[in-house]
């Protein structure tokens, strides 16, 4: 049995099957959640943003122009909200550099320290730089995938990632 595509599920929800929306939430919660977590540097804030984003996506589902591209449409809702939060709370990452104790124990001390350094350094990035750096260097996505998800040109993405890395290298030395 093949999984229903996003478009079919979106249409199912719009036809009145509210519960089908849960399939989309389940399908993307980890992927979107990881990006929000890296962008915000705070798991709780990321979860709040993600929850608000999915609810916003549900409310606006009838305005999703291309249901087959639900993923990129919803992803942009998440990243837009993350960027908005970062603009409102630019110092957010300062408090969020701690690696939870259990995870820190699972990770070599040097790596744990590097991750903390990177989080501190990321507070120097603009929300837009942070978004593309996370997608490219932390999540390991291709530029083609990023262009699809963010609706931006590959050249512009390359430039933004390069600038972000320049800022980070300088901040981490």
């Amino acid at each position, binding site marked *: 049995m093949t999984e229903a595509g996003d478009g079919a599920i979106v249409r199912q929800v719009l036809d009145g099957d509210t519960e089908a929306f849960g399939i989309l*939430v389940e399908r993307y919660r980890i992927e979107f959640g990881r990006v929000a977590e890296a962008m915000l540097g705070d798991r709780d804030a990321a979860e709040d943003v993600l929850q608000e984003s999915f609810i916003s996506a549900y409310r*606006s589902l009838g*305005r999703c122009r291309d249901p087959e591209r639900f993923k990129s449409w919803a992803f942009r*809702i998440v990243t837009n909200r993350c960027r908005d939060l970062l603009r409102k709370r630019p110092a957010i990452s300062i408090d969020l550099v701690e690696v939870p104790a259990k995870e820190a124990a699972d*990770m070599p001390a040097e790596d744990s320290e*590097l991750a903390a350094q990177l989080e501190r350094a990321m507070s120097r990035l603009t929300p837009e730089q942070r978004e593309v750096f996370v997608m490219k260097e932390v999540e390991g996505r291709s530029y083609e995938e990023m262009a699809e998800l963010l609706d931006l040109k590959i050249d512009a993405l390359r430039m933004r990632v390069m600038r972000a890395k320049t800022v980070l290298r300088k901040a981490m030395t």
Partner: protein
Amino acid sequence: MSDDDKLQRASDAMRAKLKGPDASFTGRVMDQVRKEPRPVRVPRGIEIPRWSIPLAAAAAVVLYFAGARFGSSASSTSSTSSTSSTSSLLVASPRPDTVYVRFELAAPGARQVKLAGDFSGWQPTVPLEKNDNGKWVATVPVAVGVHRYQFVVDDAWLPDPATGGVDDGFGGRNSVVVVGPKGVVRS
């Protein structure tokens, strides 16, 4: 370790600690979703209904009672009489920093027009009433600040044809009205 290696290793370490929400997350979202009204389907290709095109120039959002604040002595007689047709539909409690704004859309062929914006939680809960000139109007108390909105015309979402609008983050456009303490600054 070179700077590039260091950044790469830090990125890998960060990746290793990203988890995403746990399995209970979906249930929590769905608990909220079940309380929401069913989403309104916006048919493709009718963002701007045909009948609205020749009338676009006539559509507008205008300040109706500049400076007429709730609870203030500045509220004029005219504001009371002119808002009476919509006052029963205004749910929010007026506040001192709220200004009445009149929303208008010329759409004589429409069966129903509603207003949705950040001031209504993006729910199309503010109905406009049709006047004798074929214009749909609603006078709404709006807090001072920048607000985004759209009209919902017979279930089709429509940015105000009289304003430029901004990207709504969903592939469409939202209209924007800037409300100052003395009324609409820009729309």
